[in-house]
């Protein structure tokens, strides 16, 4: 990480500390020293520490986004580690997992090391690399998962592509089990999703766009669950998007299988009707596609009830040249790091659908558990990663002011309430009032 040297001590005073890992939701002071959490309690004295007044704010463990595309190496005009991690800091995230579908892909230990080295130079938040499951993301031969795990890969995924071959997935789970890392699968049966650009349903019928059935996702989720049962390997379903997926996850959970899942803010808050409402605006084009209102309702319930334990953005920055084209030709993806928190607070917390504790849990302790990280809590002694959120702050989404190079968001212009206002990474303040300081 770019942040070097000893940070000055910080006393974050009087905020609403929400740390689900410790079961804390109370007005407390938080003292950070030497890059660690020193103390959590009432009436702490500054004792030389710089004081941050946090009255009325949420003080939460630094948010973890386990699904981010940083585009470096290979597509730095879309995003790079410097811009992507600054976007993360602006969005309140202190840890991001970098997906391996870069060019070249991260499919061996030297590539994992290269990402870590670049991050050490330029990143302003923690970057944890995800290694590829198969060589070249081709879905054929297993990549050297053991080497990558040793080099620091926290999980394995061919994200961007599903692992279409069931035998390859079975081997990946069997082999990967030795390293205790989950296989993150982008579940989508290629034969059912071919040429599809949006969700298959009423709106694809009206718009005349090729639709992807919910079943394209569900058949592969079902397969992965069955293979997890066979192998005992950990499966993590990337960006779950359908009601059927939720049902399958519920069954897997009832059976006690090591199957986890994440959902993105946009799949929790937007529906396929938006493609119609925005008249084919390619900023609505994302993979998996925005789904129906019934799917969104099921995902919200699943998140609230813990069937889905993680919110991840699938931050997918693109250059405008890849979006300012006809709908079918446009790249899939939404730039998500800088809108995740306000979108979720506006749509899910202020509406009473989920509590602040649950939201924070799904963005801190939830991903930490899936990836076996020590982060995601304010427990004394842990790394001083902290996010302050002002639940009442109202602002419009202004993509032109994003730190991400990807301005591709269908939320442009939307008024959202509940923004991160301070991001602390290992004791260093990296963002204050929306401004990234490093």
């Amino acid at each position, binding site marked *: 990480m770019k942040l070097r040297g000893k940070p000055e001590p910080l006393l974050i005073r009087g905020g609403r500390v929400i740390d689900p890992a410790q079961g804390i939701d109370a007005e407390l002071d938080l003292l950070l020293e030497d890059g660690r959490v020193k103390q959590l309690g009432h009436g702490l004295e500054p004792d030389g520490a710089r004081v941050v007044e946090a009255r009325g704010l949420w003080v939460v463990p630094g948010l973890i986004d386990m699904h981010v595309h940083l585009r470096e190496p290979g597509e730095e005009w879309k995003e790079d580690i410097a811009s992507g991690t600054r976007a993360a800091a602006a969005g309140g995230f202190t840890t991001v997992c970098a997906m391996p579908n870069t060019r070249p892909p991260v499919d061996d230990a030297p590539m994992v090391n290269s990402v870590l080295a670049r991050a050490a130079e330029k990143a302003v938040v923690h970057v944890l690399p995800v290694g590829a499951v198969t060589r070249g993301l081709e879905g054929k031969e297993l990549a050297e998962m053991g080497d990558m795990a040793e080099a620091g890969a926290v999980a394995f995924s061919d994200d961007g592509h599903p692992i279409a071959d069931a035998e390859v997935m079975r081997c990946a789970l069997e082999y990967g089990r030795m390293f205790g890392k989950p296989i993150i699968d982008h579940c989508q049966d290629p034969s059912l999703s071919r040429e599809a650009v949006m969700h*298959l*349903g*009423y709106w*694809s*019928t*009206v*718009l*005349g*766009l*090729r*639709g992807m059935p919910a079943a394209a996702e569900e058949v592969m989720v079902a397969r992965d669950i069955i293979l997890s049962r066979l192998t005992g390997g950990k499966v993590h379903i990337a960006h779950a998007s359908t009601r059927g997926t939720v049902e399958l996850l519920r069954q897997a959970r009832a059976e006690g299988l090591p199957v986890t899942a994440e959902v993105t803010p946009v799949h929790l808050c937007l529906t396929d009707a938006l493609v119609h409402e925005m*008249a*084919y605006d390619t900023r609505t084009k994302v993979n998996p596609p925005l789904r129906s209102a019934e799917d969104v309702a099921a995902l919200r319930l699943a998140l609230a009830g813990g069937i889905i334990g993680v919110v991840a953005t699938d931050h997918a920055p693109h250059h405008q*040249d890849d979006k*300012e*084209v*006809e*709908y*079918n*030709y446009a790249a899939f993806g939404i730039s998500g790091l800088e809108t995740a928190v306000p979108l979720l607070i506006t749509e899910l917390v202020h509406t009473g659908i989920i509590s602040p504790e649950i939201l924070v849990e799904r963005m801190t302790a939830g991903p930490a558990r899936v990836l076996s990280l020590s982060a995601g809590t304010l427990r004394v002694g842990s790394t001083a990663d902290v996010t302050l959120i002002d639940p009442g702050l109202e602002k419009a989404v202004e993509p032109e002011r994003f730190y991400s190079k990807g301005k591709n968001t269908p939320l442009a212009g939307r008024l959202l309430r509940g923004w991160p206002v301070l991001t602390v990474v290992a004791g260093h303040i990296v963002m204050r009032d929306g401004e990234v300081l490093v």
Partner: protein
Amino acid sequence: MKLASRDILSLEEMPREDIELILDTAHSMKEIIYRPIKKVPTLRGKTVVTLFYEASTRTRTSFELAAKYMSADTVSIATATSSVQKGETLKDTARTLRVMGSDCVIMRHPVSGSCHFLARVLDIPVINGGDGMHEHPTQGLLDMFTMREKKGRLEGLRVAIIGDIYHSRVARSNIWGLGKMGAKVVVCGPATLLPPEIERMGVQATTRVEEAVEGADVVMVLRLQLERQQRGLFPSSREYSRLWGITRERLNLAKPDALLMHPGPMNRGIEISTEVADSPQSTIEDQVTNGVAVRMAILYLLLGGGEEK
């Protein structure tokens, strides 16, 4: 009278009053087509561009004749395109058209929604000449014009649309247009060619052609794209023609004075029997003539109508 919208992108978005205005205007335009000298000065000095990313001699010629009968200049740009776009982007092409001073662009494009995209980039009227599987609004209007001309009304008509509804922009435009004008639409085709939740667009859907045709005032047959057969959406054109082809026997289930329509070009013997296609009930040739009249009306209303009144 003026149209509510600057562009003609879809009949879904077009208000009923605009549809009526276009159909009424087309009525007086049709008379010009039958004159010995088919030329009125209405659009003199205006330049109309046809931008076709997909071949369609029929639609393009129809628009060009419409423009020429009203003394507009026409420029046609035919662009070969593949699914991987090469060279100039649509956005760049649009900018070029704008700086060249064209007054209106008619676009045919293989991707749904591309006319919406073009209309966002351009500040001159854009007319959708067919976009992907989405809509073909001028075809829908000429179909409605033909029905109204022959039947005297649209309200209460029962219209059966038979064929590949899934991929048909003609079907979508007719569904919205006819629905707004109070007709009842039944769509019919193999289950693989009926898109999901089509009933929510206000139609009845069936896979049984007899059920669709029974009692219909209009039987509209769509062109079957034979490459869908390779994609496995139906097994063979032989079976298609046996199960969904419109024959004399099937047409007899419709009202005795039912109209038979087809947007052309036809696969004779597959979706439609020659006997039926050439029968007096067939309006296929009228549709072509009416296409010019409707397009004249649209160009007039978009480019000239506002100024005169």
